[in-house]
């Protein structure tokens, strides 16, 4: 069995940040990533980030991924790609599946940074080929340069829906409409304004009633919703499209933590089932820490800061004190406060209160 000081599960913004800090603290680190590349979903983000300089504001997500990967490569952290962690056990042992082979790794501490997956939406024929998660479309067009279709409708006006719509237009696809079930746009006004300027109709109080097509998507039927989210009879409209992108939020990839029977709580504001953590980011499983979207859906900027804190604390837990421990602890916690302040951070603050993270 392989033995490490720290195992990090997930090579996205939170996981990579945790690895770096823990390696700096002197830990022998291994990171396990199920994809063939590190960087998580940053690698397909062509937009520039917000936040402050320490979270790489004004830098494109894909460039941030390169910085994080380069930083990690400077450490002696061991990187396992195409490596899916399929088991998490209470004695800090994981089972990994890689290239047709299973093996076990034992660690003094584990950081779970598995991220999130896209939520689905229930409507008739929602499984027709041509209906994609918005993130999948972003991967196709921004990484591979492959287009999902010629005419697209986006469902959901959160930041992902708004940004991916804009990126579809940049890639040469016609965005016929963006539908939003709520009475107002979910994401930042600055992203919505860009779409409006390009003439994309943003239909609020509207959802998808049905998808139509023989074997693949040909058109959708939308319907207006009243204030109680009930369909308004007679308000159906038809939109022809060959691709539909679903962007109705993300849900934490909690399965490993649930499997190991960590204390979990369903928190709507955080996107689903999340682990209860101490202020040191330790879950109810001793030595198992969690950071990033798996602990509640937020921006990648926060995931990076959380990852650093989890790395710092996991190191401390195992007797490795980072040379700048005190400075970093204060600095990182105040960075998170700044990222979560204001009206945009209200939802996340409310969610974190429910898991006891914020007083």
């Amino acid at each position, binding site marked *: 069995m392989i033995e490490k000081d720290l195992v990090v599960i997930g090579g996205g913004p939170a996981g990579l940040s945790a690895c770096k800090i823990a390696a700096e603290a002197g830990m022998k680190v291994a990171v396990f990533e199920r*994809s063939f590349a590190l960087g998580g979903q940053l690698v397909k983000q*062509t937009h520039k980030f917000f936040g402050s300089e320490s979270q790489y504001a004004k830098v494109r997500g894909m460039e941030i991924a390169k910085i994080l990967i380069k930083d990690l490569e400077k450490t002696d952290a061991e990187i396992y790609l195409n490596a899916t962690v399929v088991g998490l056990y209470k004695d800090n042992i994981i089972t990994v599946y890689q290239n047709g082979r299973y093996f076990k790794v034992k660690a003094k501490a584990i950081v779970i940074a598995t991220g999130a997956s896209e939520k689905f939406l229930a409507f008739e024929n929602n499984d027709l080929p041509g209906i994609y*998660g918005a993130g999948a479309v972003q991967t196709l067009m921004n990484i591979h340069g492959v287009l999902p279709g010629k005419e697209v409708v986006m469902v959901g006006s959160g930041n992902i829906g708004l940004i991916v719509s804009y990126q579809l237009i940049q890639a040469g696809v016609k965005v016929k409409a963006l539908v939003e079930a709520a009475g107002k746009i979910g994401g930042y006004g600055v992203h919505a304004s860009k779409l409006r300027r390009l003439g994309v109709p943003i239909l609020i109080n509207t959802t998808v009633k049905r998808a139509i097509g023989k074997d693949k998507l040909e058109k959708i039927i939308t319907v207006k919703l009243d204030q109680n989210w009930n369909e308004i009879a007679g308000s159906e409209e038809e939109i022809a499209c060959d691709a539909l992108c679903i962007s109705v939020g993300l849900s934490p990839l909690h399965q490993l933590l649930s499997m190991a029977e960590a204390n979990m709580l369903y928190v709507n504001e955080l996107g689903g089932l999340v682990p209860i953590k101490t202020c040191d980011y330790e879950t109810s499983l001793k030595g198992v820490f969690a950071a990033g979207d798996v602990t509640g859906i937020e921006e990648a900027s926060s995931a990076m800061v959380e990852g650093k804190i989890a790395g710092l604390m996991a190191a401390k837990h195992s007797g490795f004190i980072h040379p700048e421990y005190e400075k970093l602890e204060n600095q990182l916690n105040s960075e998170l406060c700044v990222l979560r302040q204001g009206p945009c951070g209200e939802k996340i603050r409310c969610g974190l209160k429910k898991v006891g993270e914020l007083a």
Partner: protein
Amino acid sequence: MRVDEHPILKFEKKNIIHFTFNGHDMIGYDGDTIAAALVDNGIMKFSKSVINNRPRGFYCAIGNCDSCNMTVNNIKDVKTCMTLLEEGMKVENELHEVIIND
């Protein structure tokens, strides 16, 4: 269908990779996942639902939804969105359909 022009990204022409899908010759490019190359070749139906036999398309691209699972080089249930295309790969779904090239 590939991106023609892009204000931010540059897609340089990469080396061609030959593969077969359900016995039909297809091409993709270096760095493509199997799934991306299939979408580029106009393939929409990736798998089918177990009970109702309804076709399933490409959905999540992060290795989570299982809609893109196919048999690759005779190995079943390979996540095609998480697997890079390689020269000579034999990719099959379980729909066994005839593809008409236009």
